């Protein structure tokens, strides 16, 4: 089974801090994604990556950046955390070239910015 591992289940940070959320997948997937999940808003795409060192903006990239130095690892960076970035962050990966765009998700990181 595909395993997508997010480094922290819960994280508490202060406004203005630089925050790193880490995600690792073990199935050699080319594609990796970061979503945030908020009550009543569903999942919204922040950034995604098709390959090492490649990145594409999603629907809500403002205030975030990403890094993909290795195929298995995709990091989400909050340059200067703000309270409106308090949310559940979900990382996902998928195989490139598959018939169905099937995403495999991690368990999420609940980030609280105080």
């Amino acid at each position, binding site marked *: 089974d595909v395993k*997508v591992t997010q480094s922290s289940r819960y994280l508490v940070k202060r406004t203005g801090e630089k925050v790193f959320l880490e995600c690792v997948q073990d199935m050699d997937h080319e*594609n990796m*994604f970061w*979503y945030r999940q908020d009550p*009543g*808003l*569903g*999942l*919204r*795409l922040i950034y*995604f990556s*098709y390959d090492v060192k490649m990145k*594409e903006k*999603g*629907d809500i990239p403002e205030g975030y950046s990403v890094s993909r130095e290795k195929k298995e690892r995709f990091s989400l960076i909050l340059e200067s955390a703000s309270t409106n970035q308090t949310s559940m962050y*979900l990382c*996902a990966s*998928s195989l*490139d070239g*598959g018939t*169905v*765009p*099937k*995403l*495999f*998700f*991690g*368990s*999420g990181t609940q980030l609280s910015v105080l």
Partner: protein
Amino acid sequence: GESVGLHLPTLSVQEGDNSIINCAYSNSASDYFIWYKQESGKGPQFIIDIRSNMDKRQGQRVTVLLNKTVKHLSLQIAATQPGDSAVYFCAENMHQAGTALIFGKGTTLSVSS
């Protein structure tokens, strides 16, 4: 912008009943529509998909229906069980964005025994 949405945020059913979860979408160009299930404390898990050239697909206890005329998608769960209690998301694949999925807002299904 284009988005995938759901008709109802919550749905409550009795164990053994059939459940129908609805979703409306706006982008006629999507290739695939996918349903995900998210249990408490977990990430979303793939349930079933349907390609845009189909109107029905069946899985184990689940059926997805696609009506392209009215841009409507539904997930039917037969003989709903307490373990089906979760948040259900529909998602669409915007072909021009590769495999990135656009998700709806979710429906919380509660099953009482």
